[in-house]
């Protein structure tokens, strides 16, 4: 054994099927807090972290889940390139022990790669719960003698043993050959291997490459062309896959005890959740419940935040006056920063409840069912039900939702989904609804807000439908998704999820909203000749007034509203913080603040109908700059992104005008 100091760091790649718990294990080992959830495809990018075993540093790479080492999807390409590269010393194949049969298919492929492999048997607790038993002596024997380590990522057991195996195994030689194909195939593999070695020199994983040549694998046949008539005469992929599964059946036969005893609770729940008639109403009911909780419990907690904010604002004002601070500074801090940032913080309880509910949905296993339940509706607009997953995530935030579209197979499906995802009302739009619906609709506020969520979903579907009718390219990729086992949401997972979101929200309040509030304060208190005494002489007023003629048909012809909408491009919450600054209301979310807002706007003829047009505009117009940036990155097209922004502005304006004009006829 070498001295600790001159040991180089070992790099480990985590590979496994989607939703087998790689990221949970990664978090447990590295102390990271990456998002995990109970549906396939949560991790879309490789992520690195570090763990330590005694004095040995271990670099851990978490990879997107894959079912095989072919190169059909983005995830497969990312993961395959990484494990094949020189960077990875040891492969940890994370396996969901409760669906061992399917998981072992990838294992057999990894074992052919010619790199050290360790099998981490995750979710052993579920196996035990179901009364199944896995023969842990026979299993490694049948897998070429590789270490098999039972772990529970959720309960954090077996982690030390796994790290020990990594360190130990990286120094040991390779496992023996695991799988022998039928005679004919083995002969072909041997001949191809020979030819490869002759043509390209000694290759470290010639057997694997030979198998891939027989697979007619796109990447390998392109980079290592071979001409072997009589051997490589057709693709043997089908036969190779079938023989692997035959071997897996043998393994299952020998290593799985009590195979027939299966807990059917998941299937019992699914009889209702995925019911052909009740599936959709149940889904809508769950969404309604989420928003009901968001509003009621959120509002209940909000009062405490407001009292605190009022006290803080008053104390700051008093303190600054006592020390004789300049008027402009008092104004900047009290009317600009505290009003803007503080106003946003009072919505924290609503945001908290919303994300808590979404975390429950994601961790329970229900998300994948949503893809199935929505498959027929989405199918009618030319998308598969899988496209609905990013859309549900869009209720939280558009940025991760757009990234989640990587789980879709084709570029056509991705772009269409990216186009409609911003219509799903994100959490940043929630403060706008909470405020304006409460001010103008009193006790009907919740229904008004709920209607906006529904309009968002309907608009998304309508836009997809129009795009589908205009574009002749038809759906090619039908729904294909694994439905995970239902489970009780894990407290730690939920805590990490919600805390990360709350942290994001607070960070946004401290950065984007903070800066936006200062900029807005400046724009409202200055013009070319310096500080102004009347807001109506400021830069902001000039800009707002210029937009009034355009927004007037939509009932939004108030210059402050125009300014608020523009500032909302930085982040949607800023629409609310701007209103505090614009109308000089320090605690806008309190009963007092709301009365003040309704008074100021009411005096300019801005009533409930205007408020509804305003909220509708906020729902539909361009998402924040962060979302636009992500969309540009994910589509690799500035032109497409610019087109989308323009389209959304136009759509928002048209919808608001229609609602205001038509609504005006009846009210």
């Amino acid at each position, binding site marked *: 054994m070498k001295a600790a100091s001159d040991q180089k760091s070992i790099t480990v790649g985590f590979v496994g099927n989607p939703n087998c718990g790689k990221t949970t294990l990664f978090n447990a080992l590295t102390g990271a807090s990456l998002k995990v959830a109970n549906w396939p495809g949560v991790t879309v990018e490789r992520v690195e972290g570090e763990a330590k075993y005694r004095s040995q540093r271990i670099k851990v790479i978490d990879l997107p889940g894959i079912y095989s080492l072919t190169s059909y999807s983005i995830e497969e390409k990312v993961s395959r390139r990484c494990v094949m590269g020189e960077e990875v010393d040891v492969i940890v194949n994370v396996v969901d022990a*409760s*669906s061992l049969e399917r998981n072992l298919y990838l294992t057999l492929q990894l074992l052919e790669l010619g790199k050290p492999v360790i099998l981490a048997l995750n979710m052993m607790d579920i196996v035990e719960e179901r009364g199944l038993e896995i023969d842990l002596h026979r299993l490694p024997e049948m897998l070429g003698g590789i270490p098999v380590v039972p772990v529970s990522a959720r309960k954090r057991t077996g982690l030390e043993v796994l790290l020990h195996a990594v360190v130990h195994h990286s120094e040991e030689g390779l496992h023996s050959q695991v799988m022998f194909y039928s005679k004919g195939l083995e002969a072909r593999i041997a001949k191809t291997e020979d030819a490869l070695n002759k043509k390209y020199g000694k290759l470290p994983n010639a057997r694997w490459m030979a198998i891939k040549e027989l697979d007619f694998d796109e990447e390998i046949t392109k980079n290592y062309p071979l001409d072997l008539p009589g051997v490589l005469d057709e693709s043997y992929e089908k036969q190779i*896959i079938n023989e692997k599964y035959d071997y897996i059946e043998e393994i299952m036969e020998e290593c799985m005890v009590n195979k027939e005893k299966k807990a059917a609770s998941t299937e019992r729940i699914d009889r209702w959740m995925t019911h052909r008639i009740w599936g959709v109403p149940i889904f809508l009911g769950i969404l309604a419940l989420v928003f009901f909780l968001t509003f009621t419990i959120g509002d209940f907690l909000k009062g405490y935040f407001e009292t605190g904010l009022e006290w803080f604002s008053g104390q700051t004002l008093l303190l600054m006056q006592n020390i004789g601070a300049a008027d402009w500074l008092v104004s900047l801090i009290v009317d600009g920063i505290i009003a803007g940032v503080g106003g946003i913080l009072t919505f924290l309880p609503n945001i908290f409840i919303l994300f808590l509910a979404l975390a429950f949905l994601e961790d329970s296993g229900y998300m994948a069912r949503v893809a199935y339940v929505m498959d*027929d509706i989405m*199918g009618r607009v030319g998308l*598969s039900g899988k496209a609905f997953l990013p859309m549900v995530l869009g209720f939280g935030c558009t940025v991760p939702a757009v990234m989640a579209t990587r789980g879709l197979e084709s570029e056509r499906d991705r772009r269409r989904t990216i186009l409609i995802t911003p219509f799903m009302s994100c959490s940043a739009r929630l403060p706008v609804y909470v405020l304006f619906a409460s001010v103008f609709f009193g006790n009907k506020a919740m229904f008004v807000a709920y209607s906006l969520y529904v309009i968002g979903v309907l608009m998304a579907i309508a836009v997809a439908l129009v795009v589908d009718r205009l574009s002749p390219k038809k759906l090619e990729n039908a729904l*294909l998704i*694994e439905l995970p086992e239902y489970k009780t949401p894990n407290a730690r997972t939920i805590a990490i999820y919600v805390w990360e979101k709350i942290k994001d929200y607070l960070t946004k309040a401290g950065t984007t909203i903070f800066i936006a509030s200062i900029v807005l304060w400046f724009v409202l208190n200055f013009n070319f000749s310096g500080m102004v005494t009347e807001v109506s002489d400021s830069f902001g007023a000039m800009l707002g007034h210029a937009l009034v003629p355009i927004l007037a048909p939509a009932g939004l012809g108030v210059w402050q509203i125009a300014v608020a909408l523009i500032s909302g491009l930085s982040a949607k919450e800023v629409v609310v913080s701007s209103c505090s600054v614009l109308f000089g209301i320090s605690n806008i979310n309190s009963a007092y603040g709301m009365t003040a807002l309704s008074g100021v706007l009411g005096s300019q003829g801005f009533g409930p109908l205007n408020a509804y047009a305003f909220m509708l505009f906020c729902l539909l117009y361009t998402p924040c700059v962060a979302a636009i940036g992500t969309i540009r990155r994910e589509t690799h097209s500035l032109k497409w992104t610019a087109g989308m922004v323009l389209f959304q502005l136009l759509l928002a304006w048209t919808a608001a005008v229609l609602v205001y004009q038509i609504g005006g006829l009846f009210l």
Partner: protein
Amino acid sequence: MTLTEGKIGCVYQVERLQVKENVTRRLEALGVNEQTKITILNNKRNGSTIIRVRGTRLALGRLITDGIFIKEVQG
């Protein structure tokens, strides 16, 4: 018959896959091969179906279920 025509709760055996090449490979990687036994857990009028195969559950859209040819076997 195709998977689209299957009945909830019945056990079938896959006879052949007649879908796009890359979908075939994907299904095979997921363990849906010729001779594999599958159970239909749920289906909808539009053809999307949930099956149990090799201890896991898969939801499949109509473009796929139309191309999976099956025959009934005794459970």
